[in-house]
């Protein structure tokens, strides 16, 4: 209690300087938190993608990837299914949920069409939070991803308007931290109608009959259908790894810069505080304060400053994320993911930088000889 009170009194004595230091630390934490939450979001997508496509192949038109490329005729599916080593093929069609042209930065809301009978193959049923997948004879039913359901406040049996057509929500998905959170799943037929893409698909998920077959399948498929490209799960993993490394480096750089910035803010404030309070520190020592008392008093002050800056930075980041995510111009994009790991890391990082920066002035203050110091009272 004493330490908190002393720290608050000392911080309050130098209001402007303390506020500036808190703002500096807050800005550093803000940058770290924003970059970190983007990195966490990407890592979550990457990890989910890796799990979902483990041992599977993705086929799409050459020079395109996933849903971003050209269209393939649905009629090619049997041709691929006939290839030796192919167990089954899941054709999918992916498109934007809205037909309005909205600028998006992150992951947009999308619809995915998958043959109803193959939906349990495409997604594990354990992903369902409630309800069920659409069945073969179901018409105009859909399964909503977690974020989409929350954005539109959807429950089982509710209606969702997709490009002017009403869909009944039959199932709701759990939070995956991935693309599925922002998707609505429906039968391939319905998706083709809504997107005005009759008998067309954007990609194929190929499930090989065995792991051994999976290695030779891409070559065999591309030999038979030369305009198709087939991506193996290991190629996908490699692709994701390199992007993950990019994010890791970016986050590490931001962490480093934010650490240096916090370090400088604290160091400047504490060096000045010790200089100003040399006489007082000398007097306290004369009255019986040991070196550890002086060091602890100053470090506690640093901790309070750093924690306040961290809280300010986190609050600003959360406000920014919410404003950014909810802004109409961004089309409800979701590019941030706040995790407990990120919160703990940013807290420990800020505290470590603050304490490291405060340690030198605190040790210097503690080593002051009382008589010499008191001449400065």
């Amino acid at each position: 209690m004493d330490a908190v009170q002393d720290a608050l009194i000392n911080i309050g004595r130098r209001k402007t300087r303390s506020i500036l230091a808190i703002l500096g630390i807050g800005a550093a934490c803000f940058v770290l938190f924003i970059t970190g939450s983007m990195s966490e979001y990407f890592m979550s997508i990457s990890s989910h993608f890796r799990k979902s496509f483990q041992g599977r192949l993705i086929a799409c038109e050459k020079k395109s990837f996933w849903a971003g490329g050209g269209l393939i005729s649905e009629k090619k599916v049997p041709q691929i299914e006939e290839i030796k080593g192919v167990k089954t093929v899941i054709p999918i069609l992916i498109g934007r949920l809205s037909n309005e042209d909205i600028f998006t930065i992150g992951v947009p809301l999308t619809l995915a069409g998958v043959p109803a009978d193959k939906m349990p193959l495409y997604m594990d049923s354990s992903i369902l939070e409630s309800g069920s997948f659409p069945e073969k004879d179901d018409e105009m039913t859909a399964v909503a991803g977690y974020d989409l359901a929350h954005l539109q406040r959807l429950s089982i049996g509710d209606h969702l308007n997709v490009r002017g057509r009403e869909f009944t929500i039959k199932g709701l998905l759990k939070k995956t931290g991935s693309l599925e959170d922002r998707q609505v799943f429906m039968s391939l037929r319905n998706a083709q109608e809504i997107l005005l893409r009759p008998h067309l698909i954007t990609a194929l998920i190929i499930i090989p009959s065995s792991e051994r077959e999976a290695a030779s399948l891409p070559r065999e498929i591309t030999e038979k259908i030369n305009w198709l490209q087939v991506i193996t799960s290991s190629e996908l993993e490699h692709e994701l790894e390199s992007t993950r490394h990019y994010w890791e480096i970016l986050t590490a750089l931001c962490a480093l810069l934010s650490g240096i910035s916090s370090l400088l803010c604290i160091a400047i404030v504490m060096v000045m505080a010790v200089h100003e309070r040399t006489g007082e520190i000398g007097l306290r020592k004369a009255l019986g304060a040991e070196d550890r008392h002086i060091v602890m008093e100053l470090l506690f002050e640093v901790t309070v400053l750093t924690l306040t800056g961290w809280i300010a930075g986190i609050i600003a980041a959360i406000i920014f994320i919410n404003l950014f995510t909810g802004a109409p111009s961004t089309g409800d994009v979701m590019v941030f993911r706040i995790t407990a790991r990120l919160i703990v890391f940013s807290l420990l990082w800020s505290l470590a930088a603050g304490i490291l920066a405060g340690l030198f002035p605190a040790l210097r203050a503690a080593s002051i000889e009382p008589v010499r110091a008191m001449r400065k009272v």
Partner: protein
Amino acid sequence: MEVLRAEELSKVYRHGPHRVNAVIQASMTISQGECICILGRSGSGKTTLLSMLGLLLIPTSGRIYIGEKEVCVSAPGKLAALRREHFGFIFQDFTLIPHLSAEENVALPLKYAGMSRKKRQARARAMLERVGLGERTGFKWEELSGGEAQRVAIARAMVNSPKMLFADEPTSELDSETSHSLLSLLTELRSEVGTSLLIVSHDREIASYATRVFSMKDGVMTPVPQAALP
């Protein structure tokens, strides 16, 4: 009973090639309840001697004993605890911490001794009552008169019932009437608690309160016979 003993204490300050002998081989023994006064002009070395005896300044040579035990002056980390346990200080210019109240200033030595907030508040208040400032506990330095501020400093010095009280020019900033009342208070407290008192001053009037008097000139301390005092 012997409270403090110093043997051949010296302090040399070095300023580049120059050496200043601030204190030269000063020795003294202070018994319980004694009041010793060291008189000397400014720059004579009396504050340096007080600082060394009070373990605020490390001597260049010599030995200091608290009771029978020699103090290891080469371990500055332990000196703070010794100061806290055995000594009280009253400094020139009052030296209160400006942003703390009178009560908080008085309670400071108790805080570093690890006493609970409640207990030290009660003790600080009682001590302020004793020095006649019971109504001024919440006042800060700037709100106190010179005499009141020095009374707070006395209360702070006595709050941990020290064996030895050091006062460095305690009345230098005060008028003669206030000085007299402060020295009377100090003498009263000294006899109540049984504390020994060492005062350094340039004011020869103070010598009348002392049981023994020394004079200091160019770092050399010599005893002054009672007969030579005013």
